[in-house]
């Protein structure tokens, strides 16, 4: 699916500007103010939480309309998790995750 061109540019420029301001924030105020303990805590858990929610959400996306989600994507993501946990390698994780996904897809369609 293609996203509407105008919305795509709004998204790019708005997220770009926001991200730039995040990066500039403390550099701009010369580090006169630094984040406190509670802010550090919240920031620490953001990547793990948001990324996990996106992973889970995208794996089960379309589950209620059928489409072999549980048979293909769920086992593939579990296999990828095992490889990531053991190897900590981005390339190996992609290789095994996608390999498993394609193998299962091929098996289901045959």
């Amino acid at each position: 699916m293609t996203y509407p061109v105008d919305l795509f540019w709004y998204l790019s420029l708005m997220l770009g500007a926001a991200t730039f301001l995040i990066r500039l924030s403390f550099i701009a105020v010369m580090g006169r103010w630094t984040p406190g303990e509670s802010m550090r805590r919240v920031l620490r858990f953001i990547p793990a939480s948001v990324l996990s929610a996106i992973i889970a959400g995208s794996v089960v996306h379309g589950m209620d309309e059928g489409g072999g989600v549980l048979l293909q994507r769920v086992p593939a993501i579990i296999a990828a998790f095992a490889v990531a946990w053991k190897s900590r390698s981005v390339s190996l994780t992609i290789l095994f995750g996608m390999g498993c996904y394609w193998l299962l897809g091929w098996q289901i369609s045959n």
Partner: protein
Amino acid sequence: MKKHETQIVRGIRQALPLLLGVVPFGLVTGAMTMKVAAGYLEAQGMSLSIYAGASQLAVLQLVMQSAAFPVLLFTGVVINLRMLMYSAYVAPHFGHEKWHWKAVIAYVLTDQAFALSVPVIEDGLRGRSLREFYLGAAVTVWLCWQLTFAIGAQVGASIPASWGMEFIIPVMFLAMVVPVLVDRPSLCAALSAAITAVAFRNVPLNLGLLAASMVGVCTGVALEIRRER
């Protein structure tokens, strides 16, 4: 002058090993962006403007799931909030720079640029030498990202839809999230966020994602506070 050249070269040299992780990420993000962008110009424009792979991929995934525009924007911003920590860390050392340098330094501030500058800052590198080292390293990462993104975008446009390449986004995120699961609070944060996301999968506008993220963060913070008592 010779000394300054060395710091730039040293920055470039130290950035090279990290490019191994940047290359597949750039290729995948470039290819995936072409799945939703109207053309190459839009795709590369997004990458130049945002220059933050994880948020770019997250936004693409949510576009494919037909999420509402504010949800896309908000999620992208939240994922990049971690950079506040990087900005706070380097700020005392770059705060005295002129505005144009501050802008460039901020624009190329990434996970990799931060990771590369920590050891040299702890080692006592300061002033112009530090700026040159930092820019040598950070601009190398930037170049590698934009180049591999461009290659990925060219190649990705010709990948057949029947391959289901979209699945590479959650797999890629998995490779990124596993290394940050270093203790019980972070593990529980990830797990509770994932379970909530599945439970709330049918909430309109993908708002379930935001709820799940909040559940994850609250779980992590609560467990950490309890552990410290």
